[in-house]
């Protein structure tokens, strides 16, 4: 019965829930979903992490390659991040090259990560102007149930934190390269960016902020994806992006900043616990 109601009166169905201060999946407005995190599940990668926020599942795998640095930046390595929204994760995506939406998500994740300055690209250089690491980070969404950016940032930073670089010997004279995989050094990571997504729903006269929205809630709030993404790192914001959805008042804005900060503490704890367990 509820299913039929949802199909015939989608807006009214959603409003009925919101009026009773509850969300369709039973959460309160400020509740977020459970986070499950696992590292190094995929052995063919150099580092990997799987995260599940509610139903949303994102896998990140890192592959290392070697290349010559760019001539204009001889002492910089490369870090290439891509987000893939597979056709299997939602019926909205079709097979083929990434859609505009996937590219927007990819760009947001790359921007947030670059702005957080977590990885110093100079650390990825082995011999200036000759050899540098290329770190390919591919984030794959297996199940898209909203707040994909949060999950992407979480897997990305977790897998980078567990990444180790094998030792490379470069002979300057013969230009010969040999890699010793038995000696590995961890990559230096500064800070820990944590992104939090919000959906802003206009129910006049008030606008309601939903934290960690599901795919259905994102759709009801009129956007493709979350409306507001706040990223907090090391006591600073490294990205506040708001698109579409309903317009946001000053008070609502302040509240979201506080929530984002609180959530970052929680996520930090989750990641640290997970990495600690892995070392044991």
């Amino acid at each position, binding site marked *: 019965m509820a299913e039929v109601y949802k199909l015939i009166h989608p807006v009214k169905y959603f409003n009925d829930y919101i009026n009773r201060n509850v969300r369709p999946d039973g959460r309160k407005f400020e509740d977020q979903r459970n986070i499950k995190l696992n590292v190094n599940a*995929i052995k063919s990668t150099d580092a*990997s992490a799987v995260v599940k926020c509610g139903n949303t599942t994102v896998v990140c795998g890192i592959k290392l*390659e070697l*290349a010559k640095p760019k001539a204009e930046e001889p002492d910089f390595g490369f870090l290439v991040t*891509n987000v893939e929204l*597979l056709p299997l994760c939602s019926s909205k995506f079709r097979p083929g090259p990434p859609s505009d939406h996937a590219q927007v998500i990819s760009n947001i994740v790359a921007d947030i990560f670059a702005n957080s300055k977590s990885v110093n690209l100079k650390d990825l250089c082995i011999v200036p102007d000759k050899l540098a690491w290329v770190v390919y980070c591919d984030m*794959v969404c297996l199940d898209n149930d909203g707040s994909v950016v949060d999950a992407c940032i979480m897997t990305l930073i977790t897998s980078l934190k567990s990444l180790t670089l094998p030792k490379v010997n470069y002979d300057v004279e013969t230009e010969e*390269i040999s890699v010793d995989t038995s000696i590995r050094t961890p990559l230096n990571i500064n800070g820990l960016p944590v992104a939090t997504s919000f959906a802003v729903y206009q129910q006049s006269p008030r606008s309601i902020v939903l934290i960690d929205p599901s795919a259905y809630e994102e759709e009801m709030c009129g956007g493709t994806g979350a409306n507001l993404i706040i990223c907090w790192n090391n006591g600073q914001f490294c990205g506040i992006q708001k698109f579409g959805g309903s317009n946001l008042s000053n008070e609502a804005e302040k509240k979201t900043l506080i929530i984002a900060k609180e959530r970052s503490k929680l996520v930090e704890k989750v990641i640290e616990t997970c990495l600690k367990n892995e070392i044991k």
Partner: protein
Amino acid sequence: MPLDYRRFNGPEDSIPYNYYTKEYLKSYHELHRELIDENGVRKDGRTLDEARSLCMFFARTDMISQAKGSAYIELKKTKVVCSVFDPREIMHQNEFSALGQLFCEVKFAPFSCPRQRRPHAPDAEEKALSVALRKALEPTVCRHLFPNYQLDIFVYILEHDGACLAAAINAAGLALADAAVPMYDIITACSLAVIGDQMFVDPTEAEENLAIMNPEKDGINNGLITMAVMPELRQISDFRQIGSMDVNCIMKATEVLQKECEKILPNIQQILVLNVVNSFEQQKQLEKEAKEREAALNAKMEEWKTLLNAG
């Protein structure tokens, strides 16, 4: 290769670092010798004719909330996810097709292969696997029940450690059953690698790689066979062989594979039966809760009635 404008690209000439490790320089014979030790045990501790079907086989359904049916299968390191969506009308169709169509897509994760990073664009191997999967599934699905409609089946290989087509078929079969698509039988699949007179049942990536690699000597059996079976009907729905081998070898392989496929069946059945049991229990729970709520409402109603009657 043209530059991909829809993704972030790394430098054009990057090379995986394992090209420079000692492992990479090993010859065919060295690699072959390494596959089995003197006791006839493989690298991962299995014997030649042992599949990864018992303790190393892990499968579940309901992986993906947005899909109609989904499955995840793990054969030790090989990890495969599959999702099936509702049938939808075929777009840009000129003629009426009496049989429903299956659209299968198999994709490798960029990080799935141990040797090198996979390109994002679909390559020949992915296309071949997609066709193989479609051919294997077509005889099992009751396609006459949804004419002019198309079923989307997406398979994603998270990690490739051999037998990925077999894993894909198993996962797709399970996902189709989970999506309640009418089928004639459950479909199971298994693969086998032949190197000389040795038969590696359910091969790993290293074994597969060596079986396809052709050393100079002719007349030696080498290759890869994947077979999909409908165990209850005792029919073969797909048989795929790469490499060259004599007829006796194929006959023997068929027998071995038939047995292995039948061994997988109880695993799949168990998952499906458990699903049904769980959903029944859930239904019961929901009904119980609904009744409780109704009773509470009725009690409220009585209360109000007495209040009203009292004036």
